[in-house]
């Protein structure tokens, strides 16, 4: 009950932000040359201006921008994301088809980056100044400094083309008609390279934070207390240091949820994944305003949700926060 109330409060607090983002995007797209109808006409191979005018009237594009925005927002209040002119179906349906791919990619990447970053960070902190630390820190810097699309492309060159171990792109083998477990394995194989590509940059960040956080926590008094109780090194890390060191990491996950969504646009384009990111890119190219606004709306909800979950996790991890609430 309290959680539900908290969620509603959080949502209400982010409504103004959402409104500003939607209005800003709407106006920005008005500045770009061409509209949906131009893109449609181009797809149809051209047509006469009269048809174009009619189409514009049909989609409500002849109204002034302010009126269009007001109409869009009014529909949004009724939870109607509108109709996609390009795909010819409701925007909600278009997004629902694409969302699982992105969620799967983000979830997998986040898990990999978090787990890998935590482990490598602890390892580096435990062996500070020795070769494992140097190796891990250098690798981290490389991951951080290299653009993710380049990683993706090199991954394709090496693993898909040279070695032929993994598929070069796509979400699953089209037309293979796999079912059940076979299909899951097939999708997993397809997602290995995209997940790695998206995760590496974040892994590098997490590993740096974890290393610093672990070094700090290990120097604190309660770690000495734990040692004075006769706890071994592993026990000290697992039972006392880890949970304390994870607090800054959890904060970071919430902050980076949006960045990760942005990163998925690039990765989905490189690997031809039918996800939300690529849909956003296509919608911009085709001036599909309704779809684009829908994506922004859903993405914003996603980021708000992730942050909310992070807050809950933080409250679970740190009793001091729960007391203050």
């Amino acid at each position, binding site marked *: 009950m309290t959680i539900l109330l908290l969620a509603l*409060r959080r949502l209400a607090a982010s409504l103004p932000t959402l409104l500003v983002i939607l209005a800003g995007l709407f106006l920005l797209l008005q500045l770009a040359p061409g509209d949906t109808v131009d893109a449609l006409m181009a797809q149809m191979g051209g047509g006469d201006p009269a048809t174009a005018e009619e189409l514009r009237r049909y989609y409500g594009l002849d109204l002034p921008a302010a009126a269009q925005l007001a109409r869009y927002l009014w529909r949004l209040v009724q939870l109607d994301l509108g109709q996609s002119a390009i795909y010819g179906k409701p925007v909600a349906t278009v997004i629902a088809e694409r969302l699982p791919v992105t969620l799967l990619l983000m979830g997998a990447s986040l898990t990999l980056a978090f787990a890998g970053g935590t482990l490598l960070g602890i390892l580096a902190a435990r062996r500070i100044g020795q070769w494992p630390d140097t190796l891990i820190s250098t690798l981290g810097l490389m991951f951080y400094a290299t653009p993710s699309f380049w990683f993706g492309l090199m991954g394709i060159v090496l693993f898909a083309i040279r070695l032929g171990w993994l598929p070069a792109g796509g979400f699953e083998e089209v037309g293979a008609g796999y079912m059940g477990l076979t299909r899951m394995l097939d999708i997993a194989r397809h997602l290995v390279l995209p997940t790695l590509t998206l995760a590496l940059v974040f892994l590098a960040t997490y590993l740096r934070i974890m290393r610093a956080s672990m070094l700090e926590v290990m120097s*604190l*008094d*309660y770690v*000495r*207390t*734990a*040692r*004075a*109780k*006769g*706890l*071994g090194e592993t*026990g000290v890390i697992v*039972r*006392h240091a880890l*949970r*304390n060191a994870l607090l800054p990491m959890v904060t970071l996950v919430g902050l980076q949820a949006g960045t990760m969504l942005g990163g998925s646009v690039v990765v989905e384009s490189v690997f031809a994944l039918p996800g939300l990111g690529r849909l956003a890119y296509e919608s911009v190219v085709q001036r599909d305003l309704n779809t684009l606004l829908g994506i922004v709306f859903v993405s914003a909800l996603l980021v708000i949700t992730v942050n909310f979950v992070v807050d809950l996790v933080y409250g679970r*991890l*740190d*009793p*001091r926060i729960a*007391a*203050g609430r």
Partner: protein
Amino acid sequence: MTEPLLSIENLSVRLPQGADRSHALSGVSLSLAANEILCVVGESGSGKSVLANTVMRLLPPGVTPDAGRVLFSGRDLVGASEAEMRRLRGAAIGMVFQEPMTALNPLRRAGDQIAETFRIHTKLGAREIREKTLALLTEVRMPDPVAALRAYPHELSGGQRQRVMIAMALALEPALLIADEPTTALDVTTQGRILALIRDIQRRRGMGVLFITHDFGVVAEIADRVAVMQAGRLVEEGPADAVLNRPQAPYTRTLIAAVPPLLPRPGRGTEAPAILALDGVSKTYRTGGGLLPGRARVTHAVKDVSLSLPRGTTLGIVGESGSGKSTLARCIVRLLDPDAGAIRLGETDLAALSRRAMRAQARRVQMVFQDPFASLNPRRRAGELVAQGPMLQGASRAEAMAKARELFGLVGLDPAAMDRFPHEFSGGQRQRIGLARALALEPEVLVADEPVSALDVSVQAQVLALLDQLRDRLGLSMLFITHDLRVAGQICDRIAVMKDGVVVEAGPTAAVFAAPQAAYTGALLEAVPGRSWIPGRPHAPAA
């Protein structure tokens, strides 16, 4: 005599290269019998904590023993394997640390942290462990032990946390308890109770206690035997009575001479006209609340305080943490805005001034802060820090620097050191810089907020003497905030005792010390460690 419980033989501990000396300990030999409390006393940097951590083998990396032995029940701990040490730690040797705020894991319940000791060393079941933990919490006289089992450290007070620490250290009935400044961070009344608790449990269980402290009052209260350390060497060792009352080593004599006796100075000039008068000053804090009504918590930090400070005298404001004494000081210099009341400095009511008007008056009342390490900007040179005030008040740079040079001499610093940065000075020197900074504005009233409580006792004595001397020379009037009644007795003409934001008693220091009117003042005086021991006067310590 039987074999000692702990015997340290010719122990030397090496510091890493680049430290201020090559050895943290050199050639220290000590022994501790079972059923005995040995106090190791020394100033900061004397190596007393290193000694405690060497016995536990919990030294920071790079700090290693390079000679000597530490025999615990006949076993040498210096050469023991890590696994062997782990079996001893917590089981045969318990340890209590200084900071109850940070020595407990903030994310785990107090009961769980005590129970962990059992889980590490025994194979007891969960229920048995719970019972034993509860019994321990009862033994350390925790109020409501059942609730304490489930409490997180932030939900406990400092004294309660220290009780949890002691319970943890005592869990497996260790033969040796090492206590590293266990009461330094506590209020004086809490300190008294914790010392009594340690003494009581030690007697009951016949433990040996290695008690590390810097405070001779605490030594007088608890020690059977005393070892005095200086710069890593043992300078004197013997029974408590002998060391405290007939010290042999010159260093011990200077240390003991620096301890302010719990004797009030004769008050003077208390009939002089008041330079500063507080009338009904109040300050409340509101926390929480926000969008949700009804959740706001209101704390009355200072409640209706009326005091007056006669010109040319020192008024001490004494109280424990949370008594509102620092809030009051901050209200007077208007770092905080009081909610009600008047603060009259001469003819001006500081409380009624606007921010801008207060800035013009700021030079008339200046403040010296507690922490000499945090209260000076580390990126500016000492001379500039002192000259900044006069420059803000319109003096030219040359004038201000000349003034700073003069002040450096006045507070006993070498004017040539003006070009140095704060970190290049010691704690006592930094406090002198803080004092020079405040004096640069030629204030009528100096507000000193615990100016000596972060300093070693010998440095403390020097700074107190300096304050006294400056007051006489410059005709300063001073408001001196402290938690330490010994210090208050040393420097204050009058004192006011605060509790929970209210002044419970005020009067000439001698009168308050001799015949406290409020029950709380009596309790405070009663709790001063080693109150019956007067340094420099042979006197049988209270048993």
